[in-house]
């Protein structure tokens, strides 16, 4: 059973890793989490994003937003790479999330067939 006392050890580990990383150039993934998004499965999409980020050990900022007015295209996510335009992907499945992260976030190639908006 986990206890809070383990956190100190975890903290030291994370601190060491943090020093190795280049700050201020992080990619950002934003998950739509309004009522429409949640009803369409956004919680599992966010879970898939976090799992993929963890698995690949990526330095990505994952946040959420409310309804952005494209309810019929939920669940959706935005991907913003440093210095690049923000891309909105919609009608997503968990498999799409893996594809977006490997192709766009890691390799920098927009997954064109899933894009619903560019900003």
């Amino acid at each position, binding site marked *: *059973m*986990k206890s*809070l006392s*383990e*956190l*100190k050890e*975890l*903290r030291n*580990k*994370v*601190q060491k*890793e*943090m020093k190795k990383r280049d700050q201020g150039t992080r990619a950002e993934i934003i*998950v739509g*989490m*309004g*009522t429409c998004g*949640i*009803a369409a499965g956004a*919680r*599992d999409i*966010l*879970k898939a994003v*976090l799992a993929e*980020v*963890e698995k690949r*050990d990526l330095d990505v*900022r*994952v*946040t*959420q937003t*409310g*309804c952005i*007015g494209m309810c019929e295209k939920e669940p959706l996510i935005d991907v913003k790479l440093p210095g690049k335009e923000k891309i909105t992907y919609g009608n997503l499945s968990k498999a799409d999330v893996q594809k977006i992260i490997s192709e766009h976030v890691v390799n920098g190639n927009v997954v064109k067939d899933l894009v619903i908006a560019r900003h």
Partner: protein
Amino acid sequence: MRELSLHILDIIENSRRANSDLIKIEILEKPDSDLLKIIIEDNGSGISEEKLEQIDDPFITSRTTRDVGLGISLFKSAAESCGGGLDIKSKISEGTKVEVDFEYNHIDRAPLGDITTTLSNFIAANGEEVDIVYQHQYKDKTFSFDSREIKTELDDVSIQSRQVTAWIREYIGENLEEIRGGEAF
């Protein structure tokens, strides 16, 4: 919504948008007295009396004034169809409290669902700005979680760093399983 934990996620999303920095969630499961109670309290911007009166009407809440949406009316109708109800109290610039109860054994009651993911996702995406205090009672056993305590232990490490959120997910999951004696949600 297929799970009550999705309704909870929806309500705390409202809290987040209302600029809360502390959200308290309490779940009380008393199968023997046929009661399931969910209380969510935040310290956000609050809702005016005028809006509070219209809050259960999904067609009155307009998009432009959307600090509350369809979510409350969905949660309310879920509770009312299970012999319970939803009560909401709010004060401008003090916060909002939502109290919902269900007949625990009502045939139409949705399962509580994956509360662990609801909480750990929320912390992973908002933990730096918003603190979560969570208390879950099942019969006579209780699990309490306070993200502020986690932050004290973490020092300058972010609660949103992925190693920490992974730990939190396991921590909540294990403890919930423990108090519920391995019973499914």
